[in-house]
């Protein structure tokens, strides 16, 4: 049984979306976390080593870091085809785009938020404009990150872009607006929103 360690309306919310898409049995454990403003307390029952969300437990074994959780869950619950399995044609692109999210796109947004210049050659990532140019190129050609089919990668990308909405952090793009709409119209997303609010 999967347990999701969760705080409402945070980066753990999208894992309710993913678990609903997967049709996997799961339970939600609400935990407190320290907020960006410095309030809140780390919950001692949260197994995340830094007291953050999301983290999941699979019968006591812990996974954290969003791309790792996505890969672990789509491998473990393959029946709804949310991610190419080992040996399948698109596996390489899938793991590339999951890793790209965590090691390029997120650090790019954090760098922009901190107002620092990404050092070419030293950093493993690039600035938001360069990263988004690549993502928009993909989504300009196909409806989803992996092509014609929605996958676990879209859970990460679409919810991130949806969350930024009109924020100046995200360059404006009709391609991205359409993509977010397409992904967040899914019934599993509506169910997840309800559960998140509960």
């Amino acid at each position, binding site marked *: 049984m999967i347990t999701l360690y969760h705080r409402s309306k945070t980066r753990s919310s999208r894992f309710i979306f993913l678990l609903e898409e997967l049709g996997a049995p799961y339970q939600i454990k609400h935990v407190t976390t320290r907020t960006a403003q410095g309030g809140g307390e780390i919950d001692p029952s949260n197994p995340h*080593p830094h007291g953050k969300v999301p983290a999941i437990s699979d019968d006591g*074994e*812990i996974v954290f870091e969003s791309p790792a959780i996505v890969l672990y869950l789509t491998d473990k619950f393959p029946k709804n085809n949310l991610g190419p399995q*080992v040996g399948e*044609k698109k596996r*390489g692109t899938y793991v590339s785009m999951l890793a790209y999210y965590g*090691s390029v796109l997120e650090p790019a947004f*954090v760098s922009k938020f901190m107002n620092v210049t990404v050092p*070419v050659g030293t950093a493993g990532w690039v600035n938001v404009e360069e990263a988004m140019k690549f993502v928009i190129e993909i989504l300009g050609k196909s409806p989803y990150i992996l092509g014609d089919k929605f996958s676990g990668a879209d859970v990460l990308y679409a919810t991130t872009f949806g969350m930024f909405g009109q924020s100046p952090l995200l360059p404006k793009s009709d391609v991205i607006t359409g993509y977010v709409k397409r992904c967040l119209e899914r019934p599993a997303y509506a169910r997840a929103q309800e559960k998140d609010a509960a």
Partner: protein
Amino acid sequence: MITLYHAPRSRSSGILWLLEEMGVPYKIALTPIVYGDGRGASAPESYRAIHPHKKVPAIDDDGRPVFESAAIVLYLADKYSLGNLAPRLDDPRRTAYVTWVVYYSAGMTPIATARFQGWDADNNTGFGTMEDMENFLCKTLEAHPYIAGDRFTAADILVGGAVRFFKSNLLSDRKCYDDYVARLDKRPAFIRAQAKDAG
């Protein structure tokens, strides 16, 4: 056939080590990059078909490109070394394995870069803190000899490579790092990869 897009003594050196550990045939395509100190040159535009930002490492496996260190490790070890360098999907160690592979690239690397750049003077960069990272690393390595448990996995190539690289200037002086790196440095595949990397 696997092609590794490689620049000597760069982030692609870790993948060279992984390929030697796996013992599968591969070829190296030397790829120009701009190093941290400004040396080097940018790869030709055609390389963007393999890596969107013209960095290394990237691989091509029978015509399919895979990029980002974490992705390459996950992809190769699952495909060519499942049950050995990558724990099987139903192995309880799979959880720690995927977590550490991703934490290397999405946690450790940005945190160390922030320290190197001096962005974390107020200790609040949004990437997480160096102190949390170091405590987590050492707590894990004090519990078992390798990062995902009692056995060497492909996660050690990334995490161990980073510990070796950051130890001299960014990490604090801790015995857990020295013991870990000493254990990894003895591996024949690592020694072969070092020799090939040096040309």
